[in-house]
């Protein structure tokens, strides 16, 4: 029967979604519990922050630069038609600080760092290194997961600060090049119309996105089954889950903190 199989498929995918969400929740609880007296491997934290923060700076900077430019190009038609050069800085700043900046930077971060993290933890899992740690009575959550989660939250937050600045710079440059808006016009339009709340709204989001990316990528990394094929599949599932959770959290945070 076609209908029966259809129902079976729906049930199976609902079950597996519920299993993954539950796994992420349990992992979140464990990470929280080992953060209560904040004890973690400091060297591991610094190493992870270097790898996740410094190494992904170039791609984030390039993304942010073009994002700023993109916002200027999109508003270009209105600006040309109504000759409203005074609103370019405000429009770009509003869009970049509140939405586009945090979301695009988080998506790139999830692709660069989250996927990489899943691949690394997944490789460790399939080569039984996590069991090795357990055999040495080292808690893998404390030793491996907690430093990664903390450093992802911090790194994404700081990268978003840098990325916002670069995006504004890119917007300025593009608006000078294609719209012929002076730097000072752009700057004053930005400074006078943007409240500090717009900036903090985006930064709060980016910290939450960092936690979401970290938890999803670690969960899919440590629950890998079945060799190289499994690692590839886990990375795929992790980036998809991270993208969905970024969009969902963005929605709820916008409603809560607007």
């Amino acid at each position, binding site marked *: 029967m076609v209908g029966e199989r259809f129902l079976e498929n729906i049930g199976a995918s609902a079950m597996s979604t519920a299993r993954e969400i539950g796994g992420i929740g349990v992992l979140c609880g464990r990470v929280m519990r080992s953060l209560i007296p904040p004890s973690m491997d400091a060297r591991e934290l610094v190493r992870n922050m270097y790898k996740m923060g410094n190494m992904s700076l170039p791609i984030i900077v390039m993304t942010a630069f073009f994002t700023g430019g993109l916002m200027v190009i999109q508003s*270009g038609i209105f600006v040309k038609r109504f000759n409203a050069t005074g609103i370019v800085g405000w429009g770009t700043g509003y869009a970049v600080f509140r939405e586009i900046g945090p979301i695009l930077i988080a998506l790139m971060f999830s692709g660069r760092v989250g996927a990489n993290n899943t691949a690394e933890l997944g490789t460790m899992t399939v080569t039984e290194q996590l069991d090795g740690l357990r055999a040495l009575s080292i808690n893998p959550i404390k030793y491996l997961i907690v430093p990664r989660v903390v450093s992802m939250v911090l790194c994404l937050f700081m990268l978003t600060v840098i990325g916002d600045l670069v995006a504004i710079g890119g917007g300025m440059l593009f608006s000078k090049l294609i719209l012929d808006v002076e730097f000072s016009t752009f700057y004053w339009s930005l400074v006078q119309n943007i409240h500090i709340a717009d900036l903090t709204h985006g930064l709060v989001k980016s910290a939450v996105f960092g936690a979401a990316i970290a938890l999803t990528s670690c969960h899919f990394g440590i629950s890998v089954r079945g060799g190289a094929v499994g690692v590839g599949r886990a990375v795929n599932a992790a980036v998809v889950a991270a*993208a969905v959770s970024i969009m969902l959290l963005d929605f709820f945070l916008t409603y809560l903190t607007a």
Partner: protein
Amino acid sequence: MNFRPRIERIGSSVLDGVDASLDLWRVLTATLFGVFRGRRPKGEVVHQMYQVGNRSLLFVGVTLGFIGMVMIYQTCLQVNRITGDLSQVGGEFAKILVHDFGPTLTAMMLATRVGAGIAAEIGSMKVTEQIDALRMTGVAPIEYLIVPRFLACLSMTLVLAVFGACIAYAAGGLTAYASFGVNPRVFFNPSKIEYVDLILGVTKCVAYGMAIPIISGFCGLRARGSSEGVGWATTAAVIGSSFAVILLDVIISAMGFLFQTGGM
């Protein structure tokens, strides 16, 4: 001071970059060539279209729906602060969805889902030596593996972008009605969309649909080692195709803008 290792490192990364770009170019030309030669396994394109299209429907629907709601919410908030006239928001949103956000955000989502999927699949085949086995039996791996995915992505990006834009628009209209009391009849107003917007949107879809499978397939074919190599290839595919989407968006939007203002 010893400069030699530093210079060597710069030189080797330059050489790697040149090597990778040549490889990427080779994959691109071989794929385009393979499209017209037409020696594909039967039913493979349809199968890939199912994989790329149908299985991304839920993902694209959920993400684009939420982003549509958020965008309308933020825009209405800001418009309320300045003028308070919310009647234009729907029309402008339709325009920007058609010429930019619909295709680009859908493609960003596909770059993570489909790009990672292609790279993981082809990368796993590479490290388990299935690609070499294909070559040994006289089958060109690019023609057999990448061309069907290329055709599937090319068609499905357009379909999913239309689907995603509709979902985002409907979700935005709902938000505007629920949170700001904008009448749906005022919101659903396609009169601002011009032919230029449609042309720009379709051009973007085609460009993204070509870039994502080529870059991801290329990353998959370059996988080395075992499970670690597959992980690296998947990461590189996600980054490469997402960045390609943003870059192509900037290029095509700038060209469209210059064309529009030059013609005005």
